[in-house]
């Protein structure tokens, strides 16, 4: 059978994966703190039909060889951690991280997750939580008599109470990874530590390479619609052309079978 069939099939499945990744990016074009994924391809192994420098006739060696590749595979997907646009919301509990760093989120089972989505809320117990209701680590409690809340560039949470007194009730801490692309996506804008990401390094916003906290802003998704649409078209056409290769191969075989039937 033609090797080309399976080769073109690898091309089609790789392009299909590219469409899947692009579709997910496009679906999250308005998701706060979302980071686009990029898929990178690799060529597959080659079968050697003739070695380089093989002797073709006595004393004559070929300058080249004969190797036919077997297609492509999706090497890996990687998150692109370029900053998204910061959009002013004027809501004091909306925060954006201008630079590197993640907010730490404590899950109900006690494990930690990481996010760049800073649309914070206050729950019934007065605790700062994410939009999904998971508490921020280290936890910050807002006293019930608070009138206004202000989050500083270093993450300090300042509260003005009804008596007019101002106090710092806690500080948001940021975490960073040596390889943020190695974090696994857990949905709900949350990321989890993996073997590949390395262990988290925690610190204060604005120090040691951590980004500053911008209160009243949200970081939009870093998905660029035009880029994604271009990727989509490219993937679609590449898919099409690979399916053409299968069709052409099919016609070749059909020709051969017709001869055999003669």
């Amino acid at each position, binding site marked *: 059978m*033609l*090797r*080309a*069939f399976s*080769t*073109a099939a*690898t*091309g089609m499945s*790789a*392009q299909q994966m*590219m469409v899947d990744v692009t579709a997910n990016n496009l679906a999250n074009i308005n998701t706060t703190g979302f980071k686009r994924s990029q898929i*990178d*391809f*690799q*060529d*597959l*192994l*080659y079968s050697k039909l*003739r070695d380089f420098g093989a002797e073709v006739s006595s004393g004559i060696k*070929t*300058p*080249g*060889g*004969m*190797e*036919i*590749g077997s*297609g*492509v595979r999706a*090497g*890996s997907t*990687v998150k*692109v951690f*370029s900053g998204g646009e910061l959009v002013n919301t004027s809501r004091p509990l909306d925060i954006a991280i201008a*630079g590197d*760093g993640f907010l730490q989120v404590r899950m109900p089972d006690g494990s930690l997750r990481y996010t760049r989505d800073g649309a914070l809320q206050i729950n019934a117990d007065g605790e700062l939580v994410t939009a999904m209701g998971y508490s921020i680590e280290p936890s910050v409690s807002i006293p019930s008599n608070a009138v206004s809340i202000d989050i500083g560039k270093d993450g300090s949470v300042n509260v003005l109470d009804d008596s007019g007194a101002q106090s710092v009730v806690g500080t948001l801490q940021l975490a*960073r990874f*040596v390889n*943020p692309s*190695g974090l696994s996506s857990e949905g709900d804008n949350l990321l989890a530590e993996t*073997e*590949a990401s390395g262990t988290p390094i925690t610190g204060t916003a604005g120090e*040691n*390479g951590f*980004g500053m906290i911008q209160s009243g802003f949200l970081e939009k998704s870093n998905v660029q619609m035009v880029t994604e649409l271009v990727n989509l078209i*490219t*993937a679609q*056409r*590449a898919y099409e*052309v*690979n399916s053409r*290769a299968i069709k*052409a*191969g099919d*016609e*070749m075989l059909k020709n*051969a079978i*017709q*001869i055999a039937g*003669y």
Partner: protein
Amino acid sequence: MSEISAQVGSAIRSLTQEFDLIAHNLANVSTPGFKRRYNDFSKSLSALEQTAGPAENSRKPANIAVDFTQGSFIETGRTLDMALCGKGFFVIETPQGPLYTRNGAFRLNENGQIVDMIGRIVAGESGPITVPQAAGLSQINVAADGTVSAAGVPIGKFKLVDFLDKENRLTPAGLNCFAAPQNMDSEPAVGLVVKQGFQESSNVQLTEELVDMIMVSRLYEANMKLISKSGETAKNLLDVAMS
């Protein structure tokens, strides 16, 4: 009669190989840093047409070569995507020895070392390039000569090599890499520019491959017709003899 079928058989074999090659190029139309393969089959085909000699001539093997022309640049904006502009390669360290690649879609591993897509170390001029923990991903900067700095401090330089005019002796090793034959040494690359935030696209040209594909399938068809015709002639001959 047998001569025709031998020649046609050899042509069909070569055409099938050519077709496999085109399918492989098409499958890699989106692989960063991929270099298209081509073979000098067309040349051996015209030789086949000219020499009505023994069938051995037509079975002369064709060579598959790599077309190392520069692909275009695609901006990805990712800190660890590098494209090479000019002749040369990045060096990937593997237990089996160094491999060479133009695919600069790099990653960091859990130790902060710069690695390729599947985690093999990318060689620096003095060992692996390690990004210190204190520096964030966005603070990595790569200069045109391949010097990597984190938060303004140089932390290493990509090892960039070139094989000058011996490039065509490199053999594809899969996973975007080329291997060099044992007795071939690399030279430090000259005038090679590293572009950070870009990927070099595959240099496969869709139209070119499609045209080749159509040509191959038509030639295949023609060869098949030839077999069919020669069979018909033989049948007619037999019919005449039998009647």
